[in-house]
């Protein structure tokens, strides 16, 4: 993990002092709400339906156990004892007071966290593969590059007032686990024919009301030019992105209206003009940052095959969990493990303070004191020795977190929705629970297999419903909450935007509709065929017919 030194901390402390002054000026009227709003957004503070919400940055999803305990304390002292993990690997607290925000930022800074640029028309948290540094299929560890991008983008003076928000994601695995195709800039680490490592740069992806899949800007960018090239892209966007219409202000609209070739030419010209003045990192600084992300030295692991087999036979829950929640590691004796924050009766992605503390302890005991927040609103603990899995699982169960949902229908992504959010048209959380109840038999969920179901409460698509096998979008039909269903989206390197299959449903009818889709799949699928592949093979018609009886 990156270790903050006194200079990094100086920035955090001066930033929270700056915000303290800004809050004071707002409260005494020296700043109007219009002037204050972008400033508070750039410190992560939204005014939501019931209260202010604070979005704390978890840079590229990496947390130390100390930081997680610190977040738990904040939940207890300043909020209602819980937090919500988001699709951008951040955490949100829903019941914050404006007057407490400066103290909270100071407290965050004391364990090297912050809320800088988690909202506003600026560069947001750079996200990545939650298995980064532990994955078995990486070209290189992307975390160091994420930290380099974080530093470059933090309080960058030219890009604090962009036409709209800007999101960057980095992936380095053979499979894209960071949804780079749906980001404003996606960076995929690749090797060229000389074995040199660089970035395949994609631009113009996004969700929202106009979902788009990112296009290739350059297939290979040498790593040493990452920052100057990013700067060229941001400069073109800042100068040319639309500012007349909020809904047409993202870079995806600019790229589409210009065409990718013309856009690429603009970026390349800009990049050449910037030589010498842009921010490629000095080699020494690059090495200093990347040195924090060397692979951990892991103690040799005993062969655990026999004991795991034994436990699986003894414990149905453990058997299910082993089958579902583990990820291969570059070290054959180790794994990374998903902690499912998805259960019947709880909002997806929420965790209580006690649960956060338990997870911090578990990460210390069995891992390297490190945790990852996933795009799917779960936690991953990397670097677990296989021989420790039975005890690891037992501790998770004791903490109430032994769910084996990773990738299954119960692993829903849901935005906070109308229960919390000012922008929403419909509630997503009660529906998520109703659907979970509809599929409450864990054997059934396991039989269905991998199925990504995402629920967004409005067109802003914060739950990435466009990139789901089954996407659900809440709409407002004459004041009543209704839900549109789409099929066939995908978030990885095979990125696809889901298609709406028909008229919307009332909330009470949605679970049965999902049941109909699943039933159609189970009847039609070939042996071992995933839901996503089945849709590709048989198309939408059988599913449409099942729901609307048009067959």
């Amino acid at each position, binding site marked *: 993990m990156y270790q903050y030194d006194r200079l990094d901390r100086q920035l955090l402390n001066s930033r929270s002092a700056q915000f303290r002054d800004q809050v004071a*000026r707002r409260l005494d009227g020296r700043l109007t709400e219009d002037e204050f709003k972008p400033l508070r957004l750039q410190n992560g503070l939204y005014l939501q339906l019931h209260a202010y919400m604070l979005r704390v940055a978890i840079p590229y999803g990496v947390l130390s156990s100390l930081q997680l305990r610190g977040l738990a304390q904040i939940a207890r002292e300043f909020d209602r004892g819980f937090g919500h993990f988001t699709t951008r690997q951040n955490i949100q607290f829903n019941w914050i007071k404006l007057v407490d925000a400066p103290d909270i930022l100071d407290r965050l800074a004391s364990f090297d966290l912050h809320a800088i640029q988690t909202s506003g028309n600026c560069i947001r948290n750079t996200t990545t593969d939650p298995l980064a540094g532990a994955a078995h299929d990486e070209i290189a560890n992307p975390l160091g590059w994420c930290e380099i991008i974080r530093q470059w983008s933090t309080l960058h003076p030219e890009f604090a007032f962009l036409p709209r928000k800007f999101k960057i994601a980095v992936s380095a695995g053979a499979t894209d686990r960071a949804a780079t195709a749906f980001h404003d800039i996606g960076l995929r680490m690749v090797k060229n024919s000389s074995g040199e490592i660089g970035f395949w740069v994609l631009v113009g992806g996004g969700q929202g009301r106009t979902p788009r899949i990112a296009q290739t800007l350059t297939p290979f960018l040498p790593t040493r030019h990452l920052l100057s090239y990013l700067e060229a892209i941001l400069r073109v966007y800042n100068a040319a992105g639309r500012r007349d219409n909020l809904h047409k202000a993202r870079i995806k609209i600019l790229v589409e209206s210009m065409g990718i070739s013309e856009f690429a030419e603009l970026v390349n010209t*800009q990049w050449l003009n910037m030589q010498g003045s842009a921010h490629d990192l000095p080699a020494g600084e690059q090495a200093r940052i990347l040195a924090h992300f060397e692979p951990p030295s892991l103690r040799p692991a005993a062969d655990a095959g026999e004991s795991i087999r034994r436990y699986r036979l003894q414990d149905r829950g453990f058997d299910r969990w082993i089958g579902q929640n583990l990820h291969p590691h570059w070290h054959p004796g180790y794994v990374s493990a998903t902690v499912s924050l998805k259960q019947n009766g709880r909002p997806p992605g929420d965790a209580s303070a006690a649960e956060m503390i338990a997870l911090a302890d578990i990460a210390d005991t069995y891992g390297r004191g490190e945790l990852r927040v996933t795009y799917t609103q779960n936690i991953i603990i990397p670097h677990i020795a296989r021989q420790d899995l039975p005890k690891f699982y037992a501790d998770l169960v004791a903490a109430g977190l032994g769910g084996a949902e990773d990738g299954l229908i119960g692993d829903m992504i849901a935005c906070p929705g109308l229960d919390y959010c000012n922008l929403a048209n419909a509630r997503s959380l009660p529906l998520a629970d109703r659907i979970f109840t509809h599929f409450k038999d864990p054997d059934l969920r396991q039989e269905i297999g991998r199925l990504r179901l995402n629920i967004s409460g409005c067109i802003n698509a914060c739950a990435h419903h466009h990139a789901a096998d089954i996407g659900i979008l809440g709409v407002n039909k004459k004041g009543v909450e209704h839900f549109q269903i789409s099929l066939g989206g995908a978030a990885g390197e095979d990125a696809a935007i889901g298609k709406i299959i028909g008229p919307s449903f009332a909330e009470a009818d949605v679970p049965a509709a999902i049941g109909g889709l699943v039933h159609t799949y189970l009847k039609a699928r070939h042996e071992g065929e995933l839901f996503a592949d089945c849709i590709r093979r048989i198309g939408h018609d059988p599913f449409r017919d099942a729901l609307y009886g048009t067959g």
Partner: protein
Amino acid sequence: MVQADMMIGEQTLAGRVESSQLLFDLATAGCVAWPVSGLCLVTDSIAPASKQIARIDTISIEFPVFSDGRGFTLGRCLRTEIGFTGALIALGHIIPDQAIFLFRCGFSHAAIKPEQLAQWQTALNAITIYYQHMPASARSRQAKTH
């Protein structure tokens, strides 16, 4: 972003600012006298070519609203790509909290409301270290570690 055949002319600055406004020096945090004239640009202006501004001492960039960040790109472009070395003034709707961003993008001055002078002075020193190593940036992280 640079058009070679644009007509460039100097204009008086008096018409572009409120008579009560002060000219705040972003380097010294003090107030100075207004220049009489200069090249007046707006945030969506195309940056002039270097030979067109060879004899110009002062350029002002007007922000229609403080959230229109194109002025920062234009300012930085004028300094780093076109090589402008004269006075670069930010006018229009700007707020004290932008002081550091303006300064680091190459603005030398800002037109401010007199009652906000203290806020601008405080704002200039709010953040004491930066990650990006901009030219003449003694506060950058890299400057401090070398």
